[in-house]
């Protein structure tokens, strides 16, 4: 529990850093670190598949896509962010954390839940046999992403 909480705090810290850091590349790397921590958190929650996916896809693939975009849009450093934000953001965020903690404490035990029986089956079965329609959806969304990229990067001839 202690280790988990420390990891969770690290996750939030790196995520906030990713938003606040000025250098885009450092932001992307901070985001990757946060994903790594989240993956480890998943492992420790007996969710190894989610952990693997989080680390390889989000910390890996998505970070690469971000770095690619940063490289292709070199003027990114010239966007001047508001200086005020660097003060206001931490203050508002800490205020929220306090409210969050109080709300959670008051909610303890108030959210009713049906007790669920022990889970049966292997993960493969749950994914392939339990949520098969989701797999169709996954194929569809991958197709959507691929066609979107193809459409957005097509050779532009004259159009109005």
């Amino acid at each position, binding site marked *: 529990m202690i280790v988990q909480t420390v990891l969770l705090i690290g996750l939030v810290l790196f995520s906030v850093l990713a938003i606040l850091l000025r250098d885009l590349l450092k932001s992307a790397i901070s985001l990757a670190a946060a994903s790594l921590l989240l993956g480890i958190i998943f492992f420790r929650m007996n969710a190894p598949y989610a952990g693997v996916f989080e680390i390889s896809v989000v910390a890996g693939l998505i970070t690469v896509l971000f770095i690619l975009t940063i490289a292709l849009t070199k003027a990114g450093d010239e966007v001047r962010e508001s200086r005020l934000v660097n003060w206001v953001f931490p203050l508002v965020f800490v205020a929220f954390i306090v409210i969050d903690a109080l709300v959670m404490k008051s909610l303890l035990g108030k959210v009713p*839940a*049906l007790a669920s029986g022990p889970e049966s089956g292997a993960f493969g079965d749950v994914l392939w046999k339990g949520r*098969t*329609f989701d797999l169709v959806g996954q194929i569809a969304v991958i197709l959507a992403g691929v*066609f979107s990229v193809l459409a*957005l990067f097509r050779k532009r*001839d004259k*159009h109005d």
Partner: protein
Amino acid sequence: MIILFVALPLVVAGVLPLVGKVSRRVVPDLLANATLLALFVTAAVAGRSLLADGPVLQQLSWLGEAVNIRLALDGFSLFMLLAVSLVGLAATLFSIDYMEHYGAKANYYALFLVMVAGMNGLVLATDLFSVYLFLEVAAVASYALVAFGLGHDELEAAFKYLMLSVVASAFILAAIAVLFGMTGSLDFTAVAQALRGLDAGAVVGIASAFFLLGFGLKAALIPFHAWLPDAHPSAPAPISAVLSGLLIKVSGVYALTRVFLNVFGLTPALSTVLMTLGAVSMVAAALLALGQKDMKRMLAYSSISQVGYIVLGIGIGTPLGIAGGLFHLFNHALAKGLLFLTSGSVQQATGTRNLDEMGGLAKRMPVTAATNLVGALSIAGVPPLNGFWSKLIIIVALIQAGHPVFAVVAVLVSVLTLWYYLLIQRKAFFGKLNERWAAVKEAPFWMTAATVLLALLCVGIGILFSSTITTWVQPAADALAGGVQAAIGSWGF
């Protein structure tokens, strides 16, 4: 074979880029239109007979082994499938000519078909997470379709649309996670049953608020509407037609209605919230539409306003109100689809969307002017067109349910709607022919054909409204009203 509605567009979409390398225009046009036509025929013909024995829950089997894909087809989903395939078919017909100058037609049709597959999947899903997933499928396809022209405005509109839409999806997922936590299940009926057993007023309220925020943004209800007036005008005309006519209704109104009526159940508090949001959208968007000079922007605000009508009707909760709301959903899909298509014809002929620059186009584009008039009168609610009947039913339902104020507001907004539509008609089509347009020609064949098809439907359904209601709308309303009966009053919050 209900899975056809999702599988067919996906398979054709997957094949299209390869086909596109060989044949740039003819075969993609053919494939896309044939797919939509097949979907329409299946929905119209086979769907009705499938439903003869009541709602169908189909469990698929693949090569003898049972595959766990459970799709549910009831009156409401069949109704939506019909709307999607009808307006989708008109849009693909229109695209045959309109998308010529955008290029990459195969790619366009592929995205379009994925969007259709997403919408169909959403409609047929039986559990909460699948609803979310197919909603995202349609959304991801739509972002690229809005930006398809790659001009500055389109990219800006698509980016803002994407940002807001992703936040909405996050809230929807959060609500789904909470429901999963409470009930241990994601299936509609299972969750509904479990919630009835639990005493969870406040948390259900929070989950409802999240759903309202998420689906409300997808449906462009005020105050979550900011993305629509930029996104719908910037998209190519057939995409605007599908976005305004279908996507906001399927991923917004349909999903909202399914969750609130069949899972949560429509409590009096929820009913009030929905009716208020609907009324606010109805009024505010109509007022905003008045000041617009861009033809498509005016149509976009009108969409927000009409979605307000639909949500108002469904929010009443009585069988008549739900039937009116659903009928208006269908009619608006047809009419708004028609209007965006005619605006595309006008834009292609004159190169502008600015109403002040147009004038007297009826002399050069008579068919477009006529079909535009049909669409405008339909949405404004002029008899004997279809829009009149659906609005009448909503107003009667309001009076019957004891909300005379809402009814009066609805009538007033109808008058306002008529006014700004006649404005479009007058500024663009009637009046003196602006010298610049002396040489424009009527829109190409397929574009005209698509608009004529929709216009004929508007007229036909207006005349045959009672049989349309009994065969299509009533089963849909019954499917929803059943859910209302079962769960009303369980929480009293």
